[in-house]
């Protein structure tokens, strides 16, 4: 910023450069010492000149200062045209710094100094005006350099000198004195008529080289003054007048100024010039001359004189058409104003009070504005010359000066001493940096309020400098201006504007680099000058250092330049919301992996989860600008690593806004850059960049026959109760059981030394094929061996699954943390995949919704809402944090297990076809194909009838009776069963065993499964100290398809009392040979007849056999062949029986241990009693009668189930032996008077009408209690029967057990026909309707009888 100091017009620039072989450090030291003198008191200037050179000399007691500045390099030769317009732009003095030693003499130093000066400033240029070479003596070689001999033009400073600084100050004052003297000489030339002509000849005039000057001038030796050259003493009137002016001007207050001015004007100086001009015939105005005079006075620190001559110049310029010079005068006046204010306020450190209405700097500001306007409207130079460039430079400098005024005032918190100081000597005050270092808005705004300068005002001022005219400027000036603008914007906190300018700065630098390379290619000559000056710039000006340093980057191998450009890029891009460093450079590969392992896993996981949540957040920034800036950044970055990082960062952070072509381009660029790097042999790996590619990690379930099942050891000892397991299919009584779900999650069991498969789902959100170099699993716990998947290409915008196969080496717990992914040429990166628990998921969902809720609202805006600054910000709601450590996919590795396989089965296609009730055997040959013996084997079965039955049971809608039937079915009629007849327990390795499974045809069974659980329980060779509570089994399943043909149906079971059986009827109807069984029925009252219809619905005839197996009788069987499609009725006499009261009063049992069976039926006690009675009698009947079937033409056979048949109350009555036995007999008196039983044949009595008969009723009590009974008699038809006595409620009296009582009733049939007589016995004391027993007889009354 040195070049844009506000008061640069008043600075005498002095160039300091090294001479000869001087170490850099030594030069820096001496130069710094010289540079500490930023001002010199006018009183210290030796004034000894007498001629025109004394014009600008200070008077001895004046109190002003000369201000020195030390630019790092001279202005370029192109600016030579400005030499008269702006002398302060040029280095007026030169100091060479040499280090003298024994090997480097003073003379050689001087020679080199002269040569260098000639190199820098070609002969004929106006400047520099004075030069000196300082030779510092080395400490080692003190005294040996021959300091004694003094050469003109070089001053040697011995190392022994104590106060070097004082001496240097004196030398500087000497130099300044010479400069001032030379200024006087220049002015002397200018004020001559020819000089004035030259001055007015062009927009930016120059003095011609001395040779072209008129003879009178050339003697001045203007072009090449030197310290050594002794100026010739030229006495002229002007010289004395100059001294007079000086004297008078400093003599007293204002009046004397004007007086002297008037005097001077009237008598001497300019009037004389005017005269000479007119004498020559030119009509040039003296405005420019006065302006130059003012400039020189300003440089000489004599502000009063300067302002006087500036005022003169303005008067002349007001009418004239010389806006550029006019503007320059205004600039000079502004500088004078500030210098005056500075010297007035320097003593008192307090700031000048601004009690006026206008700000004190408003006048200066207006002056400068005017000047800027003048520059701007200056007529364009007709010929395309340097003038364009110089005019633009002048304009920009003026704008920067105006900005500097505001900025200094602002940054030093107001118009005051500090502000002046920073305007005069910006380098010496670090105050600016201090105040603006805190870049917060509040601080900046506070400064604005304190200083009375608003930031937008500064910004508007500085933005005037920005425009197309920047292209006129030379590269260095352009950089300088842009960099100053950027600094100001940055200090103001206007980051976006800074970014804008920075982009231009970068473009400038890059253009220089590109051009520099081309130049380098053309001529390999090193551009010493620019490189040297670039290196020498020590004002902390990073940009220019970069610019110069980067030119020679190929030769110098300086990486700083590239790094600095990158820094600029990153800074500019960050403002636009692009993080170019999102993808970092991985550190050493091995270090990274160990670090990843050691790092706390929580951080990772939380980050991952949050990353997901962040996806819901809104994007930041202007996508088009971001894309543009990234393209530019890629073009700018010189380093392939940087190119790769930038492209990958862009892909990572911005792929949602990038067009597909851009994505392709970036990906390819990154690939090329990385490949180039690899070619060069550098191998810095970039971090993994493509977001989180892992969607999920899942353990593929093991094949069923390999899956180990955990069992407690207790089941080995306890006898397994198959009952329970089968019946209690769904035993949980609660519809919703909260404990069930919260129980331990089912563990993933895997087996040691057996391969498992893991499925990884990958995601590619990009539009190109994403390459992944390798993916491997990251596990902890048990040693796990897996081979990484390499060279993977994921198609664009898809999910992609891969499978990794691995083996656990030892038993224990295995945790899959996630995957380690490596992109081509990238560093591997671990991605964790926690398996969220419910609580975690809940939290996560809450976080997501909180973020989503937040996304519509704006708490921070603008640059505060940059994505990477957001994390530190508060949201309006507190996000719930994930506290629990993440859970990962866990597996339990169980010890090695034996493996069985089914080698052979007796079934073809695993299918079995059965008739209903048929029994068949399935033979399974098992082979142990592992190296471990099997000492535990157990079979369980499953078939399709179990499920529905269990479901019906669990629903509980069945009646008690149905429940019993279902349970019976489940328990006693299993479709599959295994009787371990051979006691198979051990299967040695490679041994084969045969298992026989019985299969019963059961209607409704469509398929079934045989499960063979096996294990090696006793592992003698590895004794474990804690006896494990569990052991693992494997299960082999063999599915069987079952087809059951339902061919025989039983229905319509009947039980009839034998008495009622009409034998005539039976014979034709009974399809079986029941007749031959009848003879065994000795007493029809003791028997009943069991009849059932069997229908054959199948296509083959079957022979059905019913068997009776009853105590007290012989085993009897009836069989019948049932032809296809027809129905047969089977009859079988069954002896009546009676169950004890105890037995029938038992409730219907349940076969399971189910609880909570609440009787739903609303049955009365009697009804319930009746139901139980029916149940128990039926059970008994089914025990007695069994049915079998047999294929007529084959040997297949089976059981026929009768359990579908129901027992009804009449059937029960027929089956049950009555409590009371009634025996009806008809007796007729024989002619001999002896009673005789009437003829009985074929179940009937045969009687004659009108014959007196006796009906004898014998009642026997067959129960265990004495019973009091009554008897009812019924005749049918009653009208044709005469009887004696009452027929109903005939009291029998109490009959003891096993006692028989008889009642005789005389009767007479009045006609022929068929009669029936019924008798009913009722037991007293029971309900009316219940008859204890009944009997009847049939009588056939015939005439012939």
């Amino acid at each position: 910023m040195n070049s844009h100091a506000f008061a640069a017009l008043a600075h005498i620039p002095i160039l300091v450069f090294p001479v000869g072989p001087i170490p850099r450090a030594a030069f820096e030291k001496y130069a710094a010492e010289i540079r500490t003198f930023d001002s010199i008191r006018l009183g210290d200037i030796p004034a000894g000149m007498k001629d025109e050179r004394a014009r600008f000399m200070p008077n001895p007691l004046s109190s002003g200062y000369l201000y020195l500045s030390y630019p790092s390099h001279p202005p370029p030769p192109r600016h030579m045209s400005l030499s008269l317009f702006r002398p302060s732009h040029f280095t007026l003095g030169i100091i060479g710094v040499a280090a003298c030693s024994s090997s480097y003499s003073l003379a050689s130093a001087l020679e080199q100094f002269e040569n260098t000066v000639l190199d820098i400033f070609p002969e004929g240029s106006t400047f520099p005006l004075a030069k000196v070479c300082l030779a510092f003596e080395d400490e080692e070689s003190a005294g040996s350099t021959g300091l004694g001999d003094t050469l003109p033009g070089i001053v040697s400073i011995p190392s022994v000198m104590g106060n070097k600084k004082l001496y240097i100050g004196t030398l500087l004052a000497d130099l300044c004195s010479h400069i001032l003297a030379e200024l006087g000489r220049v002015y002397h030339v200018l004020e001559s008529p020819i000089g004035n002509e030259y001055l007015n000849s062009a927009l930016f005039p120059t003095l011609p080289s001395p040779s072209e000057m008129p003879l009178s001038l050339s003697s001045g030796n203007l072009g090449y003054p030197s310290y050594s050259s002794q100026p010739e003493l030229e006495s002229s009137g002007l010289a004395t007048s100059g001294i007079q002016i000086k004297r008078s001007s400093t003599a007293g207050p204002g009046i004397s100024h004007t007086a002297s001015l008037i005097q001077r004007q009237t008598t001497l100086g300019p009037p004389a010039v005017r005269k000479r001009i007119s004498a020559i015939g030119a009509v040039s105005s003296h405005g420019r001359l006065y302006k130059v005079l003012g400039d020189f006075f300003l440089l000489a620190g004599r502000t009063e004189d300067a302002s006087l001559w500036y005022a003169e110049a303005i008067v002349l310029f007001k009418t004239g058409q010389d806006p550029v010079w006019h503007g320059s005068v205004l600039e000079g006046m502004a500088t004078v104003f500030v210098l005056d204010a500075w010297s007035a306020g320097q003593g008192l450190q307090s700031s000048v009070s601004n009690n006026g209405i206008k700000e004190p700097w408003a006048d200066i500001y207006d002056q400068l504005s005017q000047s800027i306007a003048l520059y701007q409207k200056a007529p364009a130079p007709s010929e395309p010359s340097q003038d364009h460039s110089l005019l633009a430079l002048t304009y920009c400098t003026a704008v920067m000066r105006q900005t500097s005024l505001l900025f200094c005032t602002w940054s030093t918190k107001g118009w005051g001493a500090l502000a002046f100081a920073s305007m005069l000597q910006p380098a010496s005050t670090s105050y600016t940096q201090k105040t603006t270092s805190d870049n917060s808005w509040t601080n900046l705004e506070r400064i604005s309020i304190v200083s009375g300068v608003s930031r937008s005002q500064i910004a508007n001022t500085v933005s005037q400098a920005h425009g197309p005219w920047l292209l006129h400027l030379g590269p260095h000036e352009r950089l300088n201006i842009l960099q100053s603008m950027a600094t100001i914007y940055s200090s103001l906190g206007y980051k976006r504007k800074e970014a804008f300018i920075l982009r231009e700065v970068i473009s400038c630098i890059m253009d220089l680099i590109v051009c520099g390379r081309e130049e380098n290619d053309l001529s390999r000559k090193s551009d010493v000058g620019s490189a040297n000056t670039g290196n020498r710039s020590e004002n902390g000006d990073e940009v220019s250092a970069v610019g110069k340093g980067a030119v020679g980057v190929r030769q110098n191998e300086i990486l700083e330049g590239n790094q600095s450009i990158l820094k600029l890029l990153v800074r500019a891009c960050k403002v636009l919301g692009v993080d170019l460093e999102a993808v970092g450079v991985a550190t050493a590969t091995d270090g990274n992996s160990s670090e990843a392992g050691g790092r706390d896993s929580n951080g990772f996981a939380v980050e991952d989860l949050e990353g997901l949540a962040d996806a819901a957040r809104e994007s930041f920034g202007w996508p088009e600008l971001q894309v543009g800036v990234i393209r530019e950044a890629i073009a700018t970055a010189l380093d392939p690593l940087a190119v790769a990082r930038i492209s990958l960062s862009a892909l990572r952070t911005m792929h949602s806004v990038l067009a597909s072509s851009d994505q392709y381009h970036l990906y390819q660029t990154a690939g090329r850059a990385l490949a180039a790097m690899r070619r060069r042999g550098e191998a810095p790996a970039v971090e993994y960049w493509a977001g989180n590619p892992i969607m999920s990690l899942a353990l593929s379930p093991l094949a069923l026959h390999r899956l180990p099942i955990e069992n407690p050891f207790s089941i080995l000892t306890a006898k397994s109760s198959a009952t329970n397991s089968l019946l209690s299919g769904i035993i949980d009584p609660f519809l919703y059981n909260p404990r069930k779900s919260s129980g331990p999650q089912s563990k993933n069991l895997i087996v040691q030394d057996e391969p498992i498969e893991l499925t990884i789902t990958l995601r590619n959100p990009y539009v190109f094929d994403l390459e992944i170099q390798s993916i491997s699993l990251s596990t902890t716990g048990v040693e796990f061996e897996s081979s990484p998947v390499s060279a993977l290409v994921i198609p664009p915008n898809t999910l992609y699954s891969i499978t990794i196969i691995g083996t656990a080496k030892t038993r224990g717990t295995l945790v899959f943390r996630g995957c380690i992914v490596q992109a081509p040429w990238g560093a591997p990166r671990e991605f964790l995949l926690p398996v969220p628990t419910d609580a975690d998921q809940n939290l996560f969902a809450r976080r997501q919704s909180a973020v989503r809720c937040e996304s519509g609202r704006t708490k921070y805006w603008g640059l505060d809402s940059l994505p990477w600054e957001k994390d530190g910000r508060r949201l309006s709601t507190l996000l719930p944090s994930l506290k629990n450590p993440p859970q990962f996919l866990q597996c339990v590795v169980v010890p090695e297990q034996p493996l069985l396989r089914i080698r052979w089965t007796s079934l073809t296609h695993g299918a079995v076809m059965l008739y209903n009730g048929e029994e068949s055997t399935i033979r399974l040959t098992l082979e142990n194909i592992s190296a471990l013996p099997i000492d535990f084997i157990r079979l369980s079965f499953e078939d399709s009838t179990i499920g529905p039955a269990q479901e019906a049971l669990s629903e509980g809608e069945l009646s008690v009776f149905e429940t019993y039937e279902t349970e019976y079915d489940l328990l006693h009629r299993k479709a599959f069963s295994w009787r371990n007849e051979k006691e198979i327990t051990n299967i040695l390795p490679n041994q084969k065993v045969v298992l026989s499974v019985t299969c019963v045809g059961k209607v409704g069974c469509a398929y079934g499964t045989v499960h063979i659980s096996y294990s090696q329980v006793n592992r003698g060779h590895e004794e474990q100290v804690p006896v494990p509570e569990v052991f693992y089994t494997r299960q082999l399943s063999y599915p069987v398809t079952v087809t059951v043909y339902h061919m025989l149906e039983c229905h319509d079971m009947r039980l009839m009392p034998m008495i009622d059986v009409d034998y005539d009827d039976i014979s034709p109807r009974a399809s079986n040979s029941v007749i031959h069984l009848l003879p065994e029925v000795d007493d029809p009252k003791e028997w009943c007849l069991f009849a059932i219809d069997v229908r054959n619905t199948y296509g083959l005839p079957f022979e059905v056999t019913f068997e009776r197996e009853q105590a007290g009788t012989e085993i009897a069987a009836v069989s019948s062949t049932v032809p296809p499609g027809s129905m047969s009725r089977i009859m079988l006499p069954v002896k009546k029986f009676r169950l004890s009261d105890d037995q029938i009063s038992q409730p219907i049992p349940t076969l399971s241990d189910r609880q909570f069976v609440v009787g739903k039926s609303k049955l009365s006690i009697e009804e319930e009693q009746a139901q139980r009675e029916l149940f128990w009698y039926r059970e008994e009947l089914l025990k007695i009668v069994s049915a079998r079937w047999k294929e007529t033409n084959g040997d297949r056979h089976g059981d026929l189930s009768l359990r579908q048949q129901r027992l009804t109350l009449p059937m029960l009555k027929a089956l049950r032996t009555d409590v009371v036995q009634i025996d009806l007999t008809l007796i007729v008196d024989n002619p001999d008077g002896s009673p005789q039983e009437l003829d009985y044949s074929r179940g009937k009595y045969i009687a004659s009408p009108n014959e007196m008969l006796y009906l004898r009723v014998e009642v026997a009590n067959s129960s265990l209690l004495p019973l009091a009974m009554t008897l009812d008699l019924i005749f049918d038809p009653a009208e044709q029967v005469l009887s004696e006595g009452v027929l109903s409620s005939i009291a029998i009296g109490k009959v003891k057990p096993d006692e028989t009582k008889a009642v005789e009733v005389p009767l007479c049939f009045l006609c022929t026909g068929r009669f029936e007589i019924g008798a009913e016995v009722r037991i007293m004391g029971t309900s009316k309707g219940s008859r204890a027993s009944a009997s009847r007889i049939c009588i056939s009354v015939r005439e012939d009888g």
Partner: protein
Amino acid sequence: MSHHLFLLSPSDTPIYSLTHYSTKLPQPTSSSLSSNLPTWSTSAFAGTLTALSGASSATQSHHVQGGAVRMGGGQDRHVIQMIANASLDVIEDVMRKESAMYLKSVDKFNEWTVSAFVTPGNMKFILLHETKNDDGIRSFFHDVWELYLKTMLNPFHTAHSPIRSIVFDTRVRASAKKYL
């Protein structure tokens, strides 16, 4: 003469942009400083610099002095967006201090003057224009605001989603035609 309107969300993302070419003739404001620009380099970066400094538009305007419409090229458009983005600095600064919604000519850059309108919801309407047209711009901004509010009434529209409504576009264009 052209106008460039940008609707920026609080996170500086444009949700709508419009370039409007007015039929009014631009005032020739070119300074002599920006005339006769040299082509000082041919590298791509020089192009960027040329564009950013506003030189390309300056030369362009010289070429088509007669025609009323100046074409905004791709490069130019990027620069205009950059300027709009950079002007946010000043707009944010001013809107913190002043409660006015319409910020008249808050910023100037190159040849562009920037006017802005800040809604209570922190949406920023930014208009780049070359000439002074205070009343017209104010009315235009109010029109756009109303249209924007109508769009925002849509419950499925968030503050950050781009406005793609054709109706909105048509009406904003009509308003621009009327006032600018």
